[in-house]
């Protein structure tokens, strides 16, 4: 493994978005993973529609909450093509699902993989390198007040409540950390990102980890 790696350096990570008052973090996390996987494959990097997933993933609850694994399961079963964000823009509330014709351009997934990597964060780092950014669920209660630095206390595992996207890791300093993209806008954290200590399942970051294949 390299001692530092970040998919942002490869220009395959879209910008930080803002979920506003919508509890759709699960959709932002999954769509972020698909956008990156598509770009890693050599296609163009573009914002895909989070609103489409919020409105149409029937096994979730839109802006009232959801699960990344349920969303991936839905995407995998239905082979729904995610359209561009500009064609189905974010409204910060759950709406009626818009359907597009079969010929409409979009990105569908081929498969996904979801595992518990607790006690195996080195394997998780390998998965990040091999497959692309990882959609994970964390306990983000203490993230309400986060300004920057490496989160290493006040975060339990087993009480996951927020979905985010891991884009990289950094082991160059005394405290190795995951680089985590959030969906609370760029004014939160470090330009919208947080850093979470590696190797101790801080915030339960390794408990529910998903990679997507397009």
């Amino acid at each position, binding site marked *: 493994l390299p001692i530092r790696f970040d998919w942002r350096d490869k220009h395959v990570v879209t910008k930080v978005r803002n979920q506003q008052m919508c509890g759709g973090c699960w959709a932002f996390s999954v769509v972020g993973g698909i956008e990156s996987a598509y770009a890693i494959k050599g296609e163009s990097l573009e914002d895909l529609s989070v609103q489409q997933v919020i409105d149409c993933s029937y096994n979730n609850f839109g802006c009232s909450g959801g699960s990344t694994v349920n969303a991936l399961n839905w995407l995998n079963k239905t082979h729904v093509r995610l359209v561009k964000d500009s064609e189905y823009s974010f409204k910060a509330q759950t709406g009626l699902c818009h359907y597009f014709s079969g010929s409409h351009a979009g990105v569908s997934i081929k498969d996904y993989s979801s595992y518990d990597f607790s006690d195996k964060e080195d394997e998780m780092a390998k998965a990040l390198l091999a497959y692309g950014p990882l959609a994970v669920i964390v306990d983000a209660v203490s993230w*309400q*007040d986060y300004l920057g630095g490496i989160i290493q206390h006040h975060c339990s595992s087993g009480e*996951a409540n927020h979905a985010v996207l891991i884009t990289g890791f950094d082991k160059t300093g*005394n405290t190795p950390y995951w680089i985590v993209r959030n969906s609370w806008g760029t004014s939160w954290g470090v330009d919208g990102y947080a850093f979470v200590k590696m190797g101790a399942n801080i915030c339960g970051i390794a408990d529910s980890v998903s990679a997507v294949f397009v």
Partner: protein
Amino acid sequence: ANGSHSGHVPPQRSEKGSAAFRESLRRHRYLNSFSSSDNSSAVYGINQFSHLFPEEFKAIYLRSKSSELPLCNKEVKMPTAHMP
């Protein structure tokens, strides 16, 4: 202060926001007390969520549910294609 309802934040809401803000300041002191001397520890302070009580914050923003997943007990194979 003059009892008027000027501005777009109702007085009641503002009072609640102030109480939440005071609680946030207390919380920041506690969270920052764990910082280590190497300057890498997380720093906590005032941001766009400081006017919310933790319960409100959780109700709005922390709405994801986790799923029981199998433990990853095999070595991740590093593919040669698309490797950075």
